[in-house]
């Protein structure tokens, strides 16, 4: 039973991981021409030591490539539909929707989609048409026919012309709503904008001939684009469609990417889990073998050949593994919803899918190999008479190996325990670092550009001014700052070239700077600390041209002393430095704090950062919505909570943390099952000895310690091996953070205490049972 339980749990966990790993490695491979499809990648060098990598290209590059390059069979393009969340207006109701994209007419020539209703032709015939995935069609129209229905976005009506099967889990294109590119260029302003060679708006895919040389094609593409640029600052390369998943050097991307390192780590963890589970099987089988030795001896004496015995044991192992596999699939089926929520995928165990059977078959073969060979050889090879002579050769010979295997199990478990603690501590550390302001009391509301642009420039300042005033009059809003950036949790720095200047700057020193444009309330809302100088004063007109720097900027720019009062040109506007703020976090702790320049020009600030009294965030949101409806009655309202933004920033880290947790628990649990089984076996084997010792006067305590001692030694030895390994691995993981904890000694002590406590509890359950037994009974059976 222990055998089967441990094996099934280990196999289920391993199989789920392999399912995920296989999916990661099989991204976008289902398109018919997957092997011949490439995406254009632009390498734009913006300064001496900075190159930007873009997945987008100019619109006209695609047209020209198809006409001028013979290797290019087809070209298609995709672009996000607007920025951020879109609001679908269906009969006056607003529904927020993400994942909308424009695609051009050739999209379905290059990529394979399954149409449930409609066809590519219906879709391309009319510019203002729309495709929905099956689940979106269900969401909006239920079981009614979606074809012909109308959805309004902003002021334009789109008609649903087709329904697609949901995107496969291994597709990079997780767009649920597709709209023809023709709809975008129908607007002459968009068309003009798109046809400029300086605008890189379209992710462009090329279908090449099978024999095409990608280098040659890339050079030809560069030739096309170079003619249109005055500087030779651009290089082009081609990314294979199936390589897109692990591309992680792009500046930004409309697709999801994954870290190949993480995939490898989990593949290894999956194998280790399977190994731990198989070790249990081997250990318990060989342990029981000493008890079965009599059976084997008799079979041998009766005339069984080694080959027959081997076959018997392998058959047993295959049978057990098969039962385990059945149990595994049941466990997988039960844990799948949890797993899907975790991976944010929609895996399903489909029994007709070859994938499942490949993975199940592979796992089964690996398990059988791992579990049958050694026990079978061991059992079938010993001399039959030794058991009757009372000399148990078997026991001595494989005892060391069994101990070795337990040590391997516990080493893996302890490494995982240490890993869990280190990751948890680092995430706690991140949480504690960003406590200048209370995230749970902040939210932000932005006026989208499409509303903003409708107002004349002279109206804008008074609009935002009265909006802010209205917000401040709400009882559940404590303070408001008007700022330019939509987020203060994840700000990008960028180089503004020579338009940012100060005395002593070298001509070619154009560092990436995070620019904050805020108003005077900002400092108190996010609790900025002044290091020297002063903060902006309201009503001070000269301050419009002045700048405030953070400590890092002062240091990296090498500003002359005294810093306050120095000339500083920010994005072409000359003023002085009036103050220096202490460094604060404005992006992920994976990255170092960079130079920050804070300004107060507020003509184009459209985001309101709202501070609420403690615990009033929901009320504040409602208050903000009320104000919004007064100003923009026909526009959908949305607020973003800093807590959520922060969580998003570390989502990958949190996920890894939770996964390692799960792994550690499973590994420890399986190892304990094994230990429990071995302890039971030891107690059984030493039953007689325990009886004798008790008659000779041994106390229960001394028997328990006698039976547990060797297991405790094994766990101690595992620690000796696990600690350096864990230390190395976790330091490697921490290297990804610019700000990180040191791995303290107490982490190892905690892991040691946890591992020992679990092992001792497991073993003593058996040991106490053995020690409490009446000795007369164990001796009577002789």
């Amino acid at each position, binding site marked *: 039973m222990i055998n089967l339980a441990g094996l099934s749990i280990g196999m289920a966990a391993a199989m789920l991981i392999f399912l995920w790993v296989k999916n990661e490695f099989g991204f976008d491979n289902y398109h018919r021409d997957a092997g011949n499809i490439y995406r254009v990648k632009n390498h734009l060098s913006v300064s001496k030591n900075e190159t930007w990598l873009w997945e987008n290209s100019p619109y006209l590059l695609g047209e020209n490539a198809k006409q001028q390059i013979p290797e290019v069979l087809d070209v298609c393009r995709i672009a996000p539909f607007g920025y951020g969340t879109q609001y679908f207006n269906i009969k006056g109701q607003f529904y927020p929707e993400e994942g909308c994209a424009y695609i051009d007419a050739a999209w379905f020539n290059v990529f394979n989609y399954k149409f449930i209703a409609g066809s590519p032709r219906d879709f391309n015939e009319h510019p203002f048409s729309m495709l929905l995935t099956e689940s979106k069609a269900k969401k909006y129209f239920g079981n009614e026919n979606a074809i012909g229905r109308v959805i309004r976005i902003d002021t334009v009506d789109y008609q649903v012309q087709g329904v697609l099967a949901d995107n496969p889990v291994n597709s990079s294109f997780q767009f649920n709503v597709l709209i023809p590119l023709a709809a975008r260029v129908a607007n002459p302003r968009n068309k003009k904008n798109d046809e400029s060679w300086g605008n890189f708006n379209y992710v462009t895919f090329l279908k090449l001939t099978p024999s095409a040389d990608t280098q040659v094609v890339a050079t030809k593409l560069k030739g096309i684009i170079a003619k249109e640029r005055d500087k030779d600052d651009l290089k082009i390369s081609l990314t294979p469609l199936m390589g897109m998943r692990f591309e992680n050097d792009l500046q930004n991307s409309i697709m999801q990417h994954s870290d190949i390192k993480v995939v490898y780590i989990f593949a290894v963890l999956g194998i280790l889990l399977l190994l731990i589970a198989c070790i249990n099987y081997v250990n318990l089988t060989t342990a029981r073998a000493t008890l079965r030795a009599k059976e084997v001896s008799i079979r041998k004496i009766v005339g069984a050949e080694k080959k027959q015995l081997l076959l018997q044991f392998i058959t047993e192992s295959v049978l057990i593994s098969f039962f385990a596999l059945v149990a595994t699939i049941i466990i997988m089926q039960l844990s799948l919803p949890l797993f899907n929520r975790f991976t944010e995928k929609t895996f399903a165990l489909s029994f007709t899918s070859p994938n499942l059977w490949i993975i199940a078959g592979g796992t089964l073969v690996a398990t059988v190999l791992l579990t049958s060979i050694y026990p079978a050889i061991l059992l079938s090879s010993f001399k039959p008479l030794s058991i009757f002579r009372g000399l148990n050769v078997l026991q001595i010979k494989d005892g060391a190996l069994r101990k070795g295997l337990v040590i391997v199990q516990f080493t893996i478990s302890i490494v995982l325990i240490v890993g869990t603690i280190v990751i948890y501590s680092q995430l706690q550390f991140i949480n504690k670092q960003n406590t200048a302001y209370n995230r749970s009391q902040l939210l932000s509301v932005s006026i989208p550009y499409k509303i903003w642009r409708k107002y004349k420039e002279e109206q804008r300042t008074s609009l935002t001014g009265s909006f802010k005033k209205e917000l401040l009059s709400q009882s559940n809003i404590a303070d408001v700052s008007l700022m330019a950036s939509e987020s203060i949790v994840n700000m990008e720095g960028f180089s503004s070239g020579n338009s940012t200047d100060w005395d002593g700057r070298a001509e070619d020193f154009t560092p990436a700077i995070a620019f904050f444009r805020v108003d005077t309330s900002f400092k108190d809302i996010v609790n900025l600390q002044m290091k020297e100088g002063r903060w902006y004063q309201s009503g001070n007109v000269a301050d419009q041209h002045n700048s405030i720097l953070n400590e890092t900027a002062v240091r990296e720019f090498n500003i002359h002393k005294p810093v306050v009062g120095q000339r500083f040109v920010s994005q072409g506007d000359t003023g002085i430095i009036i103050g220096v703020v202490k460094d604060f976090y404005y992006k992920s702790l994976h990255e170092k704090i960079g130079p920050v320049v804070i300004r107060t020009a507020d003509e184009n600030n459209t985001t309101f950062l709202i501070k609420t009294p403690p615990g009033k965030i929901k009320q504040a949101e409602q208050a903000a919505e009320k104000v919004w409806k007064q100003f923009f009655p026909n526009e959908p309202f949305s607020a973003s909570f800093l807590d959520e933004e922060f969580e998003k920033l570390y989502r990958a880290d949190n996920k890894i943390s939770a996964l390692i947790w799960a792994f550690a628990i499973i590994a420890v649990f399986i190892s304990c099952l094994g230990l429990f089984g071995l302890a039971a076996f030891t107690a059984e084997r030493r039953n007689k*000895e325990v009886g004798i010792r008790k008659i000779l*006067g041994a106390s229960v305590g001394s028997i328990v310690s006698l039976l547990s001692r060797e297991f405790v030694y094994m766990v101690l030895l595992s620690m000796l091996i696990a600690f350096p390994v864990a230390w190395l691995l976790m330091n490697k993981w921490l290297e990804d953070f610019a700000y990180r904890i040191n791995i303290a000694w107490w982490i190892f002590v905690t892991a040691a205490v946890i591992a020992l406590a679990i092992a001792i509890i497991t073993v003593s359950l058996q040991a106490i049972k053995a020690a409490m037994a009446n000795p007369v009974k164990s*001796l009577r059976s002789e």
Partner: protein
Amino acid sequence: MNSGNNRTFLLKDINLSIKQGEFVSIMGPSGSGKSTLLNVIGMLDEFNEGEYNFLSESVHKLKEKQRSALYKQYIGFVFQAYHLIDELTVYENIETPLIYQDIKASERKAMVADILDRFNIVGKKDLFPTQLSGGQQQLVGIARALIANPKLILADEPTGNLNSKQGEEIMNLFSELNKEGVTIIQVTHSEKNAAYGSRIINLLDGLIQN
């Protein structure tokens, strides 16, 4: 004795008193309750009814711990199957009871050395039980029973696994010990061995026959 739901008496109406310095042999067919009686005397088995007084203690009133302390100090056991610990040497086997009585290492060493000398097995002290003949193993078993200077030796068919010559040697050893003042109670099938004792008790179906 209780066994399961059916109340069966393994021993019944046993009225027996054994004086210090006696050498008693218990005889009877298999299943007559000999070993059970011996275990009750040795305080390894419990009994539900009746009284048992050992030296000046009322055993039936004692708690498990006190009982254990009592037999640890006063009783030594000898078994038919020797029951030596295979993983320990002769020396260690003999030493074990002393360890459980918290006797100091130096003292233990002297006591074990004495008994090895007395039984003439000094040369065998580093051997393991499986390397000894049956007679030698039983010798070690008796040495182990005697090491803590018990007042009573309980022997359950001590010669059952031995040939007649070895058996004779063991019985002679018992007689000698008895002369030195150790009380001995043995269970045996052999009339010849029973004769070594000063009194024979016949047991049938849990009852003493006279």
